[in-house]
């Protein structure tokens, strides 16, 4: 158990090299890959998420921890597929049409992949048609859209309409989550999005609750 506690500690401190070394040590001691992820890396990100909520950690520090998570996962990846029982949930993400602001979107994507999602990032200026096409191809659990400009927010509504006109939310049990500086819960309700994430950490919490079936 002590090794996991060390991983959790080093993740909080954002010490990438230490985390990598500890993960390797776990492997050399013959620990189960899934256990290393759950009791080490994911347990750390849970604690970090809680500390962020309480204002005890700052966002750039969380991002540094997420980098450590990535580094740890990279070590585990070769072993991961063999021992994994189920595939990670897919999450398609993009900034909507005519909007090229991607910092927030990238942060969400990074945190999602740190939390174990398979993230399909479509980048910026993604048209409704493109979103529909990708959803059909990849069958994601969740689709996330981001907008920074008040003028591009309406494209979220158009995208949802395009997805619904093909019945994708029903047939593929797809959930839609939106976010971005000018976006709020009221807007999400208005355009019929399933969820609104206030920030990158909340987006992950919601995504996890969708996967575990605890979402609304």
């Amino acid at each position, binding site marked *: 158990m002590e090794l996991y506690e060390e991983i959790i500690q080093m993740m909080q401190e*954002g010490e990438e090299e230490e985390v990598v070394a500890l993960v390797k040590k776990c492997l050399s001691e013959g620990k189960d890959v899934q256990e290393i992820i759950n009791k080490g890396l994911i347990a750390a990100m849970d604690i970090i998420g809680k500390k962020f909520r309480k204002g005890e950690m700052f966002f750039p520090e969380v991002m540094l921890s997420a980098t450590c998570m990535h580094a740890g996962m990279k070590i585990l990846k070769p072993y991961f597929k063999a021992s994994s029982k189920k595939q990670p949930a897919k999450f398609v993400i993009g900034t909507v049409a005519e909007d090229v602001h991607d910092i927030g979107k990238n942060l969400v994507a990074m945190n999602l992949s740190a939390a174990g999602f398979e993230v399909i990032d479509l980048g910026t200026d993604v048209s409704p048609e493109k979103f529909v096409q990708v959803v059909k191809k990849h069958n994601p659990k969740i689709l996330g859209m981001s907008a920074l400009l008040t003028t591009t927010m309406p494209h979220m509504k158009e995208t949802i309409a395009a997805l619904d006109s093909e019945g994708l939310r029903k047939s593929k049990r797809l959930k839609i989550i939106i976010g971005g500086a000018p976006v709020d819960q009221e807007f999400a309700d208005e355009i019929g999005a399933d969820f609104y994430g206030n920030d990158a950490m909340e987006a992950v919490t919601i995504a996890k609750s969708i996967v575990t079936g605890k979402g609304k």
Partner: protein
Amino acid sequence: MIGNKFNPLSGEEIELIHSSSLKVLEEVGIKVENDSAYEVFKKNKAITSGDLVKIPRSMVLDALASTPSKVVLYGRQQQHTLELEGREVHLGTGGAALNVIDMDSKEPRKATLRDIMLLAKLVENLEYVDFYIRPVVAQDVPREELDVNKYYASMLGTTKHVMGSVYSIKSFHEVKELASIIAGSLESLKRKPFISFITCWMRSPLTLDPQATEIMMEVVREGLPVVLSSAPMAGSTAPITLGGCLVQLHAEILSGLALSQLVNPGTPVIYGYVPSAANPISMDYLGGSAEFGLLNAGAVQLAAHFDLPNYSSAGLTDSKIPDAQAGIEKALSILQVAMAGGNYIHHAAGMLESMLTVSYAQYVIDNDILGMVSRILRGIEINSNSLAFDVISKVGPGGNYISQKHTARNLRKEYFFPKVMDRDLRKEWTAKGSLDLWQKANHRVKKILSDDQPPKIPEDVDSQIRKTFNILIKGH
């Protein structure tokens, strides 16, 4: 923290003020209605006539030479040690206010001994308040028992340095004995004084207060640290011009230094002042004036020019409640005096209505002001890490710094994070109840005061104190 970033007076102007002050002492003199002080001056060849004492230049120069250029005030924990010298900055509470704004009703009420203890506990937990001057006069305690009880209540709540004034020679000795019991002995108290005294020995203009002078001389004989505090009001008890006010203030304090150094050469005395302008309508003291900060900053320069540890004032306001006026007036004077380099800046937290009322919430708000001012004093650090070429080059055009290690590693030390200033987005602010600063500060006060912290006087010492003195507040 070092000030010396704001100097309203030039070196030449300081010399002009100083020579005018010497001239005032030599030609105008001070009124001394205290016999023992009068005798000391007379014996040392000051020119006396009636109750007037004219102080020769040489006496002042001798005093300047023998006054220590550094006074160390201790707390009862190592980290609370305060070194008063040069432009070293420390910030803390002040005052002898009569009223407290009640936390729940938000109305003023009479201050009590319990307030002194609770405010001490609050200050113990405020990160940027360095010392505790008992802020209020407890009105539920008989005057004869007040001094020992107020020092006791202060030390029960905080281990930071405690300062106050005393009413009589008798109560000075009681307080000294109280502190000696806590220190273990008078010798250890003198070695590391964690309490000290303020004497308002000067009644401006240029008149010694007979009773306070008696007490001042007694503290000086004991060799315990003492502040010589003069509080001239420009326009009523001092000239209306700021320059003239400083000339008189400087002369007054020099006369006190002379007296203290004649009584006990080398004794630690602190150059103290609470100057401001008088309100030309009511003739009351104006704590929130822009001139208040300027006068105090100028006086910091005068003290520092002669290597004298100083006690200055900032953070007063004429507002009656913790509102925008209070914030503006406090921030401006605290910033001025801290940037000047006041060694022991009192009144810097909690005070309202000039010096008449304190508010629990205001201490918490002012703690944030002090934090911001401390950050400003720290300035902009320049070194290879802060110049950040490596990370600029790593991020490159069009990237962002949010996920960079350089950002995560530097943000806590580079930025000050206030405790109660609102930084939420409107939606979060609304979700948390749309609280204003006063309400937020009250929450923090209640959180700190409801936290179960052991009394700062150990139980065995406490029972020893209670055998010696009539302590009127519950300890353990």
